[in-house]
């Protein structure tokens, strides 16, 4: 059973922009500049009641600096510990990367839509992710590990810039033991790299996709997403079974501030996960 979202959320219906405090309980280094911050709400009710679905995000804030939309990379069946895998790139994420266990962050959430796990039951899943696009899909992998028998083949196609940049490498063994196939590629190898070199979409060339029974989940750089969709469509996977998680500028998570709009959608509220049939009219419009 996929847990349904229960109250209390860390979203106040009367003060929706006010954060709730969460303490950093553990920091796991994943790759250069990328760490997973494990958080726990200070409020015990929230700690107990907080639920999210795979693919949703929180607005994580540092007072005085700002707030950033960050996907939840942890296990949705363990809402007590919330994991955010963060790459230090902007104001807020750089400040967080300087923080230590015991420090406190502001959190609002969870926001947005989720991966269509219901659609995946009984089907093969192909996950295509690039770089920091894997953390938003990791909750799916946790779920698959807990409910492996619900799904057919599960294949992860993952790429990063260099072997060093590959995330969650310590978990590959666990995934493989659960018969999750992992195909990895890097843009540039190093002296010890024996694996594939190239972009994520080429991993499709060695992947057998049964179009009648496959769900594609993809997240990563927009250009990668475009080519993943191209490969998926070329294999006749129908658009409504290709799920994409998009990134946009977000300031509220409520479908109010306007920044994340894409045509009729507020990506923060109607997304970030979309089935491709909804996005089809807009994805190939330049600069929309």
């Amino acid at each position, binding site marked *: 059973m996929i847990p349904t979202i229960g109250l209390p959320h860390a979203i106040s*219906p009367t*003060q929706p922009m006010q954060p709730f405090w969460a303490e950093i309980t553990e920091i796991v280094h994943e790759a250069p500049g990328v760490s997973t911050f494990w958080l726990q709400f200070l409020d015990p009710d929230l700690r107990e009641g907080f639920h999210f679905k795979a693919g949703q995000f929180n607005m994580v804030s540092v*007072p005085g600096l700002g707030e950033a939309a960050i996907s939840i990379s942890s296990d949705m069946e363990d809402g007590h510990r919330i994991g955010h895998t963060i790459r230090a790139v902007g104001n807020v994420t750089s400040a967080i990367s300087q923080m230590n266990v015991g420090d406190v962050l*502001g959190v609002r959430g969870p926001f947005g839509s989720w991966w269509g796990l219901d659609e995946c039951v009984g089907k093969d899943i192909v996950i295509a992710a690039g770089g920091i696009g894997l953390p938003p899909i990791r909750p799916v992998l946790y779920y698959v590990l807990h409910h492996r028998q619900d799904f057919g083949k599960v294949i992860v196609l993952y790429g990063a810039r260099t072997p060093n940049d590959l995330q969650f490498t310590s978990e590959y063994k666990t995934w493989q033991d659960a018969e999750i196939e992992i195909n990895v590629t890097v843009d540039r190898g190093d002296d010890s790299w024996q694996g594939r070199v190239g972009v994520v979409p080429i991993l499709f060339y060695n992947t057998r996709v049964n179009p009648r029974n496959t769900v594609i989940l993809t997240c990563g750089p927009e250009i990668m997403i475009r080519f993943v969709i191209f490969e998926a469509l070329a294999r006749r996977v129908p658009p409504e079974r290709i799920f994409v998680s998009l990134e*946009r500028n977000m300031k509220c998570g409520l479908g*109010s501030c306007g*920044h994340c709009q894409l045509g009729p959608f507020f990506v923060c509220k109607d997304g970030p996960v979309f089935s491709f049939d909804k996005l089809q009219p807009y994805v190939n419009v330049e*600069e*929309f």
Partner: protein
Amino acid sequence: MAEIQLSVGSTVALPKVALEKLVANLHRMGYLVLGPQIQDGAVVYKPLDSAGVLPKGYTSQQDAASYHLVYTGHQRYFDVTPGAQSWKQFFFPPQTELASYKREENGRWQIEERSIDLTPLALFGVFPCDLAAVQIQDRIFLREEWKDPVYWARRQSAFILAVNCLHPCGTGFCASMGTGPKASPGFDLNLTELEDVFLVELGSEAGRLVMEGMPILPTSAFWLQACQNGLDEASTKMGRSLPAPQELPDLLLSNLDAQQWDDVARRCMSCSSCTQVCPTCFCWDARDSADLTGQTARREKVWDSCFNQDYSYIVGGNSRPNTRSRYRQWLTHKFGSWYAQFGTSGCVGCGRCITWCPAKIDVTAEIRAIREEVQP
């Protein structure tokens, strides 16, 4: 003469001299009355002490990139159509506090209790286009699942005195958008200004209370006819029109590659004037700041615009990097995707974006040009 019953839904006549008493009644009921007044050559909305400071005798001449107040000496209070300001600023202020934080002894942040000024506002002289705009913003800021606290507090206690628009502006097209020249329900009182009297339509119990004790007269067939004639004439007199707005979502969103986007991008300066004066534009930015000691911090909600450079910025790029993409976003949102989001057009036809565009860009002309380009 038999006593006239004041009841919600009824219309009575009010001698013009009694307008002062109406303002006084609102003051007495505890409202902060806000009304149109002339300042620096334009009409602005600010606290109204007396009906005497209303822009009586003035009219405004508006065209693309042009706005002038003209004194004609007539005896009408509400002839001046709106300037750059709209009532949006009172429910959705340009800058409000979202949260303030203070550091505790242990170094952790504490959220300070936030107070919202609960003085009820009376908006005195809201034209139908602007009333429609308030109702559109209600859909944006008052959701079932959450409510903007400042908007909610101010909106629900506000008194709206609407005024039918008998002398529409040169850039307006409210008749096309179905928002004017007659005010739709949603007002507490609605005035029609005739030569000697106001016709006053009572829209709510609050409106009825304000009218209690006023020197009212029964409406006559003559006045009702004058009101209807004035509205009919106003519909035909406004400076712009926009045919079939309900067709625009399809027209605009299926022609995202029209040549006209390139053309308008050569004229638009991405200055964001149109979004600042638009009474429905709702985009805002959350800005964080801290004091120099690092002991206090605050988040503010500040008006933003899809024309601003960092509006669509994310690490790794800007999804709308140029004027063409920004103008297209504004127009396709306002007249197109707004329907899917909020079940209505985002435009009320007030014409402000035309009047206040320094480059004389006229949305009605742009839309016409796109229509002509793709449906020759």
